[in-house]
């Protein structure tokens, strides 16, 4: 047949461009990470994605942009975030030392602000005036509303109707910051449907609007670009741990919803072969129940929201609903770079159940006086598992670095209900519920 795609146009040559294995893992560029990623989008969005990629690459080479982002990270976000050793928590980790990268101490309470500030500055460069975002339960929406207020951008956040009701306080936070929150009433009324609605908005308004996607999923260049804005997490952590213990850690642990905090931490260590990388997905009520968000245990490669990656889907390729106590991990697909690292064997992905995560949540509260986001509690539970396995394997001087990606203020009502700390009527009056990060 004629080679219909051997074109010299920018889009046409991409077939043959798969992951470049001569590059270091940490500097891999899109659109493909191995056989994952790509741009499975309507043609209407391609021009905007091309523009975004061009502007983002130019911006990263522009000292003015890089300087302004660094200034905001320092003066507004509060970077660098501290590295905290947690010895009382670590007593439960089989003898490993455990350090937490404190993204929970960032402005707005999670790592999300890193990416949001980077993209919002790009929006200004592109001359667009409006940003839209999806949010599962509020953290990315709040971060986006924050950056929009700071940089004088119109902001619309799409959120599943169910979540807007259960998370009235985060909706109020976004509105206080000047954002419009649009409840999504179609499909399963979840994060996935909020992304669908944001994509529909974007197709219709792409000339004035940037879709400020909140994680390392979506069409190229989002997975690569969002990683670039979060890699500061791992770069700081690498310097901090070297400074603290004089060597690299043995293992990293992070929770993986879309996977932005995990990739942000992992990236600086991807080429350090001696550092084991662990990503912890939401095991929900258990893989065997089908109520989970463990894409690597219960999914298969497929396309959703513009990228090919591991995906919870049925035999017909219909997206399956995901489940997790943590809304930030409750997403049926995962960033393509994680699928690539999984298939390469460079990172290990394991499910952590709701119950395991909540136990680790309580443990960190009680032993260290730190209330983690329930998302991050999945990483903590995983770290306990990794530490105990290391002890069983007879490893000594074992060090685990955990990304504490967010703080748990938003999760207090969920935790109170989980641990039966308050009566139901009092909970109902707080008008809050499970909240999450994605």
């Amino acid at each position: 047949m004629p080679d219909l795609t051997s074109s010299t146009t920018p889009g046409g040559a991409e077939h043959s461009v798969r992951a470049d294995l001569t590059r270091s893992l940490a500097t891999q560029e899109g659109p493909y990470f191995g056989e994952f990623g790509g741009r499975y989008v309507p043609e209407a969005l391609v021009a905007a994605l091309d523009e975004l990629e061009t502007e983002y690459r130019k911006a990263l080479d522009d000292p003015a942009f890089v300087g302004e982002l660094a200034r905001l990270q320092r003066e507004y976000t509060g970077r660098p975030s501290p590295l905290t050793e947690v010895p009382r928590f670590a007593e439960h980790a089989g003898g490993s030392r455990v350090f937490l990268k404190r993204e929970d101490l960032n402005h707005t309470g999670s790592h999300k602000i890193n990416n949001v500030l980077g993209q919002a500055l790009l929006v200004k460069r592109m001359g667009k005036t409006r940003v839209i975002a999806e949010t599962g339960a509020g953290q990315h929406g709040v971060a986006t509303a924050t950056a929009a207020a700071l940089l004088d951008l119109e902001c619309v956040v799409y959120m599943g109707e169910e979540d807007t009701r259960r998370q009235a306080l985060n909706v109020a936070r976004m509105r206080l910051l000047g954002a419009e929150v649009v409840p999504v009433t179609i499909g399963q009324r979840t994060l996935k449907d909020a992304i669908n609605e944001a994509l529909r908005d974007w197709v219709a308004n792409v000339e004035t609007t940037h879709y400020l996607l909140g994680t390392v999923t979506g069409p190229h260049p989002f997975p690569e670009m969002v990683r670039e804005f979060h890699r500061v997490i791992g770069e700081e952590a690498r310097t901090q741990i070297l400074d603290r213990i004089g060597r690299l850690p043995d293992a990293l642990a992070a929770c993986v919803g879309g996977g932005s905090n995990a990739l942000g931490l992992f990236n600086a260590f991807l080429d350090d072969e001696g550092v084991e990388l662990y990503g912890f997905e939401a095991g929900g009520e258990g893989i065997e129940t089908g109520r989970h968000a463990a894409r690597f245990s219960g999914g298969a490669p497929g396309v959703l929201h513009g990228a090919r990656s591991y995906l919870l889907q049925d035999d017909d390729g219909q997206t399956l609903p995901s489940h997790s106590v943590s809304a930030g991990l409750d997403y049926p697909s995962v960033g393509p770079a994680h699928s690539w690292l999984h298939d390469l064997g460079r990172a290990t992905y394991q499910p952590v159940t709701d119950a395991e995560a909540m136990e680790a949540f309580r443990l960190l509260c009680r032993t260290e006086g730190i209330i983690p986001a329930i998302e991050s509690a999945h990483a903590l539970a995983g770290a306990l598992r990794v530490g105990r396995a290391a002890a069983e394997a007879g490893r000594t001087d074992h060090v685990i670095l955990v990304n504490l990606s967010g703080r748990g203020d938003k999760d207090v009502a969920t935790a109170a209900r989980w641990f039966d700390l308050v009566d139901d009527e009092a909970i109902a009056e707080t008008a809050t519920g499970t909240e999450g990060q994605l």
Partner: protein
Amino acid sequence: MSAAPTQDAPGASTAATGSVTARRLLELRAEGRAGLVAYLPVGFPTVERSIEAALAVVESGVDVLELGVPYTDPVMDGPVIQAAAQAALDGGVRVADVFRVVAAVTERTGGRVPVLVMTYWNPVLRYGVDAFARDLAAAGGAGLITPDLIPDEGRAWLDASEEHGLDRVFLVAPSSTPERLALTVRASRGFVYAASTMGVTGVREEVGPQAARLVADTRAAGADLVCVGLGVSTGRQASEVGRYADGVIVGSAFVRPMLADAPWDERLAAVRAVGAELAAGVRSARSGAEQTTDAPTTPGEVDA
């Protein structure tokens, strides 16, 4: 109107490629009018009734069918088609049902009406790109319209469609650059689908001037056959678009009456009425005659 296609014309021209859709659209061009393309979701309200609806719109004057595979995450569809797709999924429709519907419709229209399938990409990936193409071809289907597959990601589909002789209808949009138009036209077979507007499927008041501009630009990029979709719902709009496009694609306007809370016969009658109005629209487009809402002068025949 552009000249007849040449044998060496690329992609979307066609005759040379043996595309039944292109052949039909060229016949209609020779008759001096655009084709009417109707979108209907497979399995809505049931698989059997989606066959009935397809036959009904053909009887009302539709020239080409576009049968949609219901999908959980239809990002290019507005509320009407989303609702129908969700209802079909809730009703238990399976991807393989599309082949049954295509085969039934093809057989009962005597193979005279090209039947395309509109599908988001993941159901095809999951089924297997080559297997999907094979089974679609075996059912008598003409090809695929792929709203979230750009040619850049379409290697496997380009190969499978060549192998099984199927049309590849890719979309172009008002935002497409000349380079993207050229790339898409080269990759297409059957016709090129020009999105009239930046947005999703649905009923709109007006089809803007950018649709005509996009059709002209797409022809300039080498396409012979260009059909226009998104937002066309009335006979007047069909007439307007039929002046410059080779086909007028209508979805939500057909699906909306199917969502009504009314007996099925009444809903079918309403769908036929929509088809008749649109068919009259495309037939009046280039005649200079006023568009009417009368039944079409050359209704389709159905062996039913």
